[in-house]
């Protein structure tokens, strides 16, 4: 790394303009908008005031600094505007008169004592007031000062305000306040993982580390960033903190790095807590919680923080205005209960995490982080990997036509469903044989989950294409896989048993062959033909952890525990990008199968075996991943049993604490359908639980 000027995360105002520009992302349109308003003002057009709203650390000062610098550098505005960039913490402002003085000071205007002399000092130029913490300033000058300011602005028509605040505040949002509706309000949202990666990439580029810049775009880097995002809520200040100390080698250290950054932030949060009045502090500390703290309704907050129930709503409103607390809409999560009830949680997850870290000495947070790491690793990989059937088609084509110029053909059946449909259309227009187009559309249907439609189209393709054409064979294979997907196992089994010897002969030990074995074994397991399933998959079981897991399921359900245990060990020995992927893929099967058995007969074995191969993290993630399917077929009583058994069997395993707690919240929710159960989870876990709950409802309705 070259040594560039250090980026100061708390004081962007002190950072050189060029450096701020180099790492500025996402909000260029807001800068353009504000600057175009200034031009309009200078040209004698209308007056537009802008207000940027966002929590601390979201990048308001960075944004305002960019605007201030660009205005000062704009030659077309020279001698036409004066910029008054007020202090970030405007202690000197006590009332309207001192505000005017402060404006004059920061704009280097002399001889100013009141509104009229300010206008005189401007000498025909326009004034742009840049005010971070505008809410604070309005508070200090009180309503009467706001009226005076507005009067000055209205009569001069040459003054505009570019303000920022942590949240909407009464002085701009209530009808009876002078500045009601006067601002064009822009909410500054947190960074997504992609945006964070972009920021880190820019910082790396600025520091001359192009290798890191490229690496940050990899799925591996993003899976780690996702964990930080889940915890930090996409808080830009945290990304800036991390940006300076990240490297390729340290990407797996990103999470510990984040924890250390959190430690750096602790004094900052302590300062902020100190500024709170007693009642406010009690509420904030309640919402920080001792354990996994989620959102709470007003009544619970009053009770837990011991503030009078009558004053709690008002205190909460004030905390919302101060940017400490936000309310969560209950109707954003599935379930029953009054969707209009307001639940509250801390606006900045980092505040909660920083307090919790002190309270639990980092233990709880460590567990959450560990779980999220596994979870997001899984999710990211499954979202970015090539669909199995897509890769199958490509592999087959490559194998069958090696050396011939058919490569372009293989690409025809790869891509998103939209692309595939577009290609089918193109094929039809080119008159390239109906079968090819049908096959492309069938792939698209399959990718979209329309398995019945895919089967029908494949039927057309199979009858249209010459039986010697490899595409006919691809169609037959895809049809078998589609049959498996819609539960027509008998048909799939019949076909696959028939073609397997031929495939084996043409492509011995080939991935396509193994894939067909796995589909066949999977279907056999579904029909409780576990012994046959084990025989079919065994030759492939050493090829891929997923296949080893199919063998594991077959053995386990067959009651052959030592064989199952061996399969698990063999799976965990295999080198793979992420072993939890296979657990995730197969745990659903296992869970569904286990509905028919007493969970007490299987869960202890699973916990013991996974612990033995050091794969409890994967077990936890897989357990949750499989839950929607499990819930959709299990009665609510069965679901509660399931959660109880898991809780009991993992009580002394901290690694399982987080997934089991999420499992408990989800099963309680399934039983009661009360939103409250999901809202009780902190946002980083709620974000995982809510999609699972929605998926369970969807599956239940389909069933």
């Amino acid at each position, binding site marked *: 790394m070259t040594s560039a000027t250090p980026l100061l995360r708390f004081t962007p105002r002190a950072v050189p303009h060029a450096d701020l520009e180099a790492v500025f992302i996402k909000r260029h349109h807001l800068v353009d908008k504000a600057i175009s308003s200034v031009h309009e003002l200078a040209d004698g057009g209308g007056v537009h005031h802008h207000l940027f709203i966002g929590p601390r650390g979201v990048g308001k000062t960075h944004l305002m600094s960019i605007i201030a610098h660009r205005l000062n550098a704009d030659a077309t505005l020279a001698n036409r505007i004066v910029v008054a960039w007020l202090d970030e913490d405007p202690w000197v402002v006590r009332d309207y008169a001192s505000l005017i003085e402060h404006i004059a000071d920061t704009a280097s205007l002399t001889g100013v004592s009141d509104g009229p002399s300010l206008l005189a000092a401007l000498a025909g130029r326009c004034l742009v007031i840049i005010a971070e913490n505008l809410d604070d300033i309005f508070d200090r000058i009180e309503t009467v000062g706001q009226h005076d300011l507005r009067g000055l602005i209205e*009569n001069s028509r040459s003054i505009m305000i570019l303000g920022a605040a942590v949240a909407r505040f009464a002085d701009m949002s209530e009808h009876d306040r002078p500045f009601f509706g006067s601002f064009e309000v822009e909410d500054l949202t947190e960074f997504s993982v992609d945006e964070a990666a972009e920021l880190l990439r820019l910082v790396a580029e600025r520091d001359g580390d192009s290798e890191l810049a490229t690496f940050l775009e990899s799925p591996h880097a993003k899976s780690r960033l996702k964990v930080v995002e889940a915890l930090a809520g996409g808080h830009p200040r945290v990304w800036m903190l991390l940006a300076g100390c990240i490297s390729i080698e340290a990407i797996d250290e990103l999470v510990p790095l984040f924890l250390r950054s959190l430690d750096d932030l602790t004094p900052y949060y302590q300062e902020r807590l100190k500024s709170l009045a007693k009642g406010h502090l009690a509420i904030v500390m309640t919402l920080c919680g001792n354990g996994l703290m989620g959102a709470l309704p007003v009544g619970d907050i009053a009770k837990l923080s011991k503030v009078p129930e009558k004053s709690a709503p008002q205190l909460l409103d004030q905390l919302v205005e101060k940017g400490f607390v936000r309310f969560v*809409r209950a109707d954003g999560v599935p379930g029953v209960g009054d969707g209009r009830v*307001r639940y509250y949680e801390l606006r900045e997850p980092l505040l909660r995490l920083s307090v919790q870290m002190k309270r639990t000495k980092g233990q709880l947070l460590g567990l959450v982080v560990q779980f999220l790491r596994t979870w997001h690793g899984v999710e990211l990989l499954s979202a970015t990997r090539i669909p199995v059937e897509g890769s199958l088609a490509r592999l087959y084509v490559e194998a069958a036509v090696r050396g011939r110029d058919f490569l372009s053909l293989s690409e025809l059946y790869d891509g998103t469903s939209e692309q595939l449909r577009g290609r089918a259309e193109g094929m039809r227009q080119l008159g390239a044989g109906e079968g090819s187009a049908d096959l492309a559309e069938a792939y698209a249907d399959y990718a979209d989950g329309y398995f019945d439609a895919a089967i029908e189209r494949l039927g057309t393709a199979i009858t249209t294409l010459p039986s010697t054409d490899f595409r006919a064979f691809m169609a037959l294979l895809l049809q078998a896989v589609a049959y498996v997907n819609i539960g027509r196992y008998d048909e799939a089994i019949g076909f696959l048993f028939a073609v397997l010897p031929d495939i084996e002969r043409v492509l011995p030990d080939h991935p396509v062959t193994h894939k067909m074995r796995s589909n066949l074994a999977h279907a056999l397991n579904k029909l409780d033909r576990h012994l046959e399933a084990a025989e079919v998959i065994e030759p492939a079981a050493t090829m891929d952890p997923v296949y080893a897991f199919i063998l594991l399921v077959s053995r386990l359900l067959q009651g052959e525990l030592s064989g199952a245990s061996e399969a698990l060990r063999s799976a965990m020995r295999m080198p793979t990008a992420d072993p939890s992927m296979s657990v995730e893929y197969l745990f659903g099967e296992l869970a569904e199968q286990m509905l028919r058995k007493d969970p007490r007969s299987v869960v202890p074995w699973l916990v013991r075996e996974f612990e033995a191969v050091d794969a409890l993290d994967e077990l936890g993630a897989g357990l949750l991943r499989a839950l929607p399917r499990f819930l959709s077929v299990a009665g609510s009583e069965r679901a509660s049993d399931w959660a109880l058994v898991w809780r009991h069997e993992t009580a002394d395993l901290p690694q399982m604490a987080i997934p089991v707690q999420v499992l408990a919240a989800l099963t309680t929710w399934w039983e009661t359908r009360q939103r409250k159960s999901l809202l009780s989870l902190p946002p980083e876990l709620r974000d995982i639980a809510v999609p699972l709950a929605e998926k369970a409802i969807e599956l239940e309705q389909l069933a």
Partner: protein
Amino acid sequence: MATVLERLGNQSVIIGAERRMGKTSLLRKLEAEANDKAFVICYRSVENTSSPTEFVEAIIEMVGRRLSPRHKIVKGLRNVLRDVGLKGIDIKGVTLDPAHAVAWKPLLERVIETIDRDKTKPVVLLIDELPYMLQKIAAADSPAIARDVLDTLRALRANHPGVRMLFSGSIGLHHALRQLHDPTIAWQPVNDMAAVSLGLLAPEDAINLAKRLLLGKNVATDTLDAVAARMAELVEGVPFYIHHLAAGVVEQFGRTADVPTPADIDALVEKAVLDPADPWQLAHYVTRLKDYFEEDHEVVAIILDLIARSDDPIGFDDLTKQLHAKKAKTPSDDEVRALLDLLERDHYLVKAGAGRVRFRLDIIRKAWRAKRYLDR
């Protein structure tokens, strides 16, 4: 604008409207575009004016800014200032000696008299935020002084028909008058002025505004006509809500390739009405009743509930009958009439023919129903 100018041709005017309906924009437009052969138009917000003396300064200043220094009115005003001991000062930024506080009335009379000296065309004083200034004077000095200002202005209007005044403000003047009212005297300080209620935008203007707000914002324009029409229709041409809706559309569609549809507009309105964060500040219509109607606020709320529940406009007899059924201690018919009048001035209600009333805006009715939990 045409209506206001037409009225100003004959008399002074009070403009009433909710906040963010475009009052100030209208005043600005009048000043910018109607300063022609027919009128001299001067604008001034008296929001930062807190005494009668400062008010006189504001009047001098607004005229001084509009007319050239050589205009005979300006020369006359300079003479007036000289007579009170202020010589050679810039008439655009006049500050009177606080010692003149007691003498503001004769000074105001001389100023208005001077302004009326040019008989070629009426001079219109657009005085923005007058009700707020009156409240401030009443609080700082006494309600009697504030009343005196209004009475003096009324007398001056009668004696100097060449000077027209236009009062406007975020607070309805009728509320300020109610607060200043002395029950022992009959007081009608503005009944010589024409009241103009700022109408909603005409449909085509509302549609144009909606389109203007969406163009150039990276929102797909395939459906622009239909979407803009739906925006204008759903909020019945209230510019403030059109602005909010446009911001919502830009937020939802400005960064995607998705094309907004009229149904999306319905959803945005629904969301705004139901959102507990109340981004459009609709709860204000419920919460402000206490301030506006003081001890009557409960009965007013019940009246609005009854009207909000009814899908059709409701007649007076029907309303009072239902009111009796709802509330043990009901106001007399006359009192109900007076409250309905006030509700109409506060832009809640509008007469719907055949002696019936309804909510002026359907969106306010929706908001009222939602905030008061009337929807079953």
